[in-house]
């Protein structure tokens, strides 16, 4: 998995995607929201085939492995809002956890702050999960419900190919920087498929360190290997960045970065905290929605709305720093997550059943 996403992402940025942005769930969702005219930033409008590929790749492989299970009903509206907040946090940091690893692998030391923030958020989230936080167990749903998100992505795929009038396409800015559509789609499908098979998740990999400690590494390959996938992702991306001349070590002149370290930290804390509460980073939500998880589908739709909102409300960070709207949004998001975590706790209980799956 690490090789597929690490080499694939660096290849995409070498082939035309923005620098250090071979794969980024949040940036790409902002592009997709723009293409669907949910916001009016003419530099951020493109139906990114990678996003479509993640969902359809996971969908295809889950069908092939007979793991497609249509389920839902575990606080979908709450997941929708937390999904939106994940994108708020990502936009303030300028990148999702996948892009954070890519930035680190390309030598951007500014991303270390984001990594520390993500780890802090995961730690806080786990404190609640280990102490009775619950969203309610998902239950089986008719297959048609699980097909909704893959169906929507299939529609977007057709739209990306035939480019109808209602789809906006940037002619300049980051939206105009993209790899050839079929390469993006192929790598997206591969990443989605492998992520479905391995349950790859950046926040999940880090969370397991807190849950299992050194045993996570010592028990490999009997452990899930999430942490190993994460480490190999970084190593493969690092080597690929060096081989393609995209590695520039330092804190100055780094693409998609700024000097608002405190807000970058808090932005990624929001992402780590929220990801733990809804069981997965933005990429994981996309992949899970492809294998029939309607709750993850609700989070994905929330992420899409969040992507439009950060553009419309001027929340996203840029080279100059984090705007006031972004600062307020991150603080509000953290308060919201704390309140959600507090009121959804069953004090005296440990890890709720819906969080235990996949922990062993």
């Amino acid at each position, binding site marked *: 998995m690490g090789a597929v996403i690490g080499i694939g992402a660096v290849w995409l940025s070498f082939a035309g995607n923005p*620098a250090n942005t071979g794969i980024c769930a949040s940036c790409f969702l902002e592009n997709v929201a723009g293409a669907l005219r949910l916001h009016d930033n003419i530099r951020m409008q493109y139906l990114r085939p990678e996003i479509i590929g993640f969902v359809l790749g996971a969908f295809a492989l889950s069908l092939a492995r007979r793991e497609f299970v249509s389920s839902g009903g575990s606080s979908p509206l709450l997941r929708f809002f937390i999904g939106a907040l994940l994108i708020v946090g990502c936009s303030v940091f300028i990148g999702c956890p996948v892009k954070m690893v890519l930035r680190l692998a390309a030598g951007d030391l500014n991303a270390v702050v984001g990594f520390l923030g993500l780890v802090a958020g995961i730690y806080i989230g786990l404190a609640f999960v280990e102490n009775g936080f619950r969203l309610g167990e998902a239950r089986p749903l008719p297959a048609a419900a699980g097909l909704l998100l893959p169906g929507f992505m299939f529609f977007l795929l057709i739209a990306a190919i035939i480019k109808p009038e209602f789809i906006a396409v940037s002619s300049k800015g980051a939206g*105009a920087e993209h790899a050839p559509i079929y390469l993006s789609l192929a790598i997206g499908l591969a990443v989605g498929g492998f992520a479905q098979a391995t349950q790859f998740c950046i926040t999940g990999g880090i969370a397991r360190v807190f849950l299992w400690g050194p045993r996570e590494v010592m028990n490999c390959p009997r452990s899930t290997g999430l942490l190993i996938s994460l480490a190999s992702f970084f190593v493969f991306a690092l080597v690929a960045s060096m081989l393609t001349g995209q590695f520039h070590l330092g804190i100055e*002149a780094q693409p*998609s970065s700024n000097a608002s370290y405190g807000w970058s930290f808090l932005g990624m804390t929001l992402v780590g905290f929220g990801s733990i509460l809804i069981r997965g980073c933005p990429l994981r939500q996309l992949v899970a929605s492809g294998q029939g998880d309607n709750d993850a589908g609700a989070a994905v739709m929330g992420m899409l709305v969040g992507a439009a909102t950060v553009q419309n409300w001027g929340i996203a960070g840029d080279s100059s720093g984090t705007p006031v709207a972004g600062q307020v949004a991150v*603080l*509000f998001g953290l308060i919201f997550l704390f309140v959600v975590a507090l009121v959804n706790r069953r*004090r*005296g209980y440990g890890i709720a059943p819906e969080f235990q799956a996949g922990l062993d």
Partner: protein
Amino acid sequence: MEDIPSREGDACRIAVAKDPVVGLDLKRLDRLDRLSLLVVILLAMTMVVVVHLAPPVKKNAVVRRRVVVLNPGLDRKLSLVERILASDNPRAAHKLLLGLKKNFSYDGRVFMLLGDYHLRVQNPVAAMHNYRQAVDLNPDFLDKNTELFQGRKIKGVLAEVANIIAVRADPAVRKELLYMRRKVAGGCG
């Protein structure tokens, strides 16, 4: 409420109390509750401070992105300035540009030409300052997909400024230089 079976020796620490509390009961707060409430209060106070210290919103900052101003008169004046600069008469060009800056402060091309003027008179720091205003007003100057792209020239100026800073450290100039270098490096926004 169902009981969750305990698994001895597991990292997933399952503890079941005799009388579990659901929701938030202010009379029976545990350590995590108290800490969380404290953090929420701190975050809320920080939010109030951030909003209080925020600079007033410039309305034209939002409008700028959405309005395309066509001004054939300005286009003619700008090409005249370009010709004057090319004919090696920077003083006359500067005089014209200052007038244009007063009337067309929303147009990045004016600042780009002001930067060109300062570059011509060997003042790279002032050139960088004007280029910054130009790219803030119109990011197309750093976009390879547009005709306005001036990235290479700006990169050259930034290299000159970096050399100057190495000799004469000035925090404000350094901050602007770092900003411009990040801007030139690009990104996904």
